[in-house]
Structures are given as structure tokens and as C-alpha cells.
């Protein structure tokens, strides 16, 4: 079974600065996908970034990038030049694509990020 752990319940950062959110996971699979979702106060789940485990290169989407350490089973999210609109809950999630009986997403407990002006 997959488990996802986010050890930082809350974090804050000054606007324009950089912040890193931590995530570790546990899986027996060799191939899997990892995600960071953003949940603003509207509560809609918005995909921020994804990483395929077989790719060594860290994914990047504009101001968002990940540090994927497969051996350590670590998948942290770095937000550069933080903006007020980045204030939200951030969930780390994993998914294994090839198991018929385990094709759902597993989420961490979330990190509440507050960007301060």
C-alpha cells in the first residue's frame, strides 16, 4: 500500500521569497506518479505539478519545481517568488498506474501555506 506523509502542517513565507514543502512517501512499486495539488479557500483541487518516477529530471512548472529523490522517497515542492495567491493547502499525492486494484490517488495530510505581504 502507498502512504504519503507531509510533516509540516503549516508554513508561512514572505511574498517574493522561496518556500519548500516537504513530502515523503512509501511504496513497493517501481513505477508511480507523484503530484502536488493546491487547494485554495474555494476548496477546488488544482494540479500544480506532477512527476513520473521513471524520470530522473525534476519537474518544473513556472515558479513551481520539485526535488525528487527516488532513493529517499522524497518529493518536495519549491515555490519561488511566492505570491499572495499561492496561499492555500498543498497536498502531496501518489498514484501507481499499473495495478488494477490500486489505481486511486493517495494523499498526504496537507500543508497549509500562508504567503504574507
Amino acid at each position, binding site marked *: 500500500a502507498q502512504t504519503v506523509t507531509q510533516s509540516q502542517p503549516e508554513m508561512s513565507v514572505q511574498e517574493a521569497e522561496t518556500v519548500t514543502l516537504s513530502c515523503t512517501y512509501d511504496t513497493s512499486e517501481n513505477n508511480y*506518479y507523484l*503530484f502536488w*495539488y493546491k487547494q485554495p479557500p*474555494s*476548496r*477546488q*483541487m*488544482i*494540479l500544480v505539478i*506532477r512527476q*513520473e518516477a521513471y524520470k530522473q529530471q525534476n519537474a518544473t512548472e513556472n515558479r513551481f519545481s520539485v526535488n525528487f529523490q527516488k532513493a529517499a522517497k522524497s518529493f518536495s515542492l519549491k515555490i519561488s517568488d511566492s505570491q499572495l495567491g499561492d496561499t492555500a493547502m498543498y*497536498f502531496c*499525492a501518489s*498514484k501507481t*498506474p*499499473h495495478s*488494477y*486494484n*490500486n*489505481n*486511486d*490517488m*493517495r*494523499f*498526504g*495530510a*496537507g500543508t497549509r501555506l500562508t504567503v504574507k505581504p
Partner: protein
Amino acid sequence: EPEVTQTPSHQVTQMGQEVILRCVPISNHLYFYWYRQILGQKVEFLVSFYNNEISEKSEIFDDQFSVERPDGSNFTLKIRSTKLEDSAMYFCASTSDRISYEQYFGPGTRLTVT
């Protein structure tokens, strides 16, 4: 851009009543999911659905829950006799195939059981 839609956005019901939450997945998607998020807690998997049958369900998805795809577009979650602890945000998601890495989430339905 196609998106998953859910109705209603907020449902208030009394304990013991039946509720049906509705979702319209993206039209060419084949796999459908329901997730639940109790206020302040993590998003939890409930059930996945493919080819008109449940492919996987979690321990949360007991006999009080059922899912259905009554026509070619809607995907519903029914709770037969709601309990106070069913109060949560319910998210529907869909994906085009089992291997696809991205599930597209709807905006959620907030269920309040009083």
C-alpha cells in the same frame, strides 16, 4: 478546456436522509472516482468505477454508499442514510485510462448533515 462538474455545490440534509451527489466527468474519460475530505483533514479515496462496475473501494465505502452511472454522462454517489460524520467535501474525479497519471477533479460538493 473540458472539466469535471459537480452538482450541487452545497447540500444540506438531515441525519437519516438519502442524498445523491452528481458528477459529470469529462466526456471521453472512462475511469471515475469519488473522494471525500472531512473539514481540516486529508482527501480520502472512496471508490473507483470502470465499465459500469466498481473496480476498487476503500473501507470508508460501506453498504450505505453506492455509485451509479445511470446514463452516458452522469456519475452519482448515493448515501442511503446519512450520518453526522458524513459531513464533508466530496470530490469527483475522472481520467481517460487506468495508466494515465492525471485525474481531473471536480469542484466538489459540500455535504452538511444536521
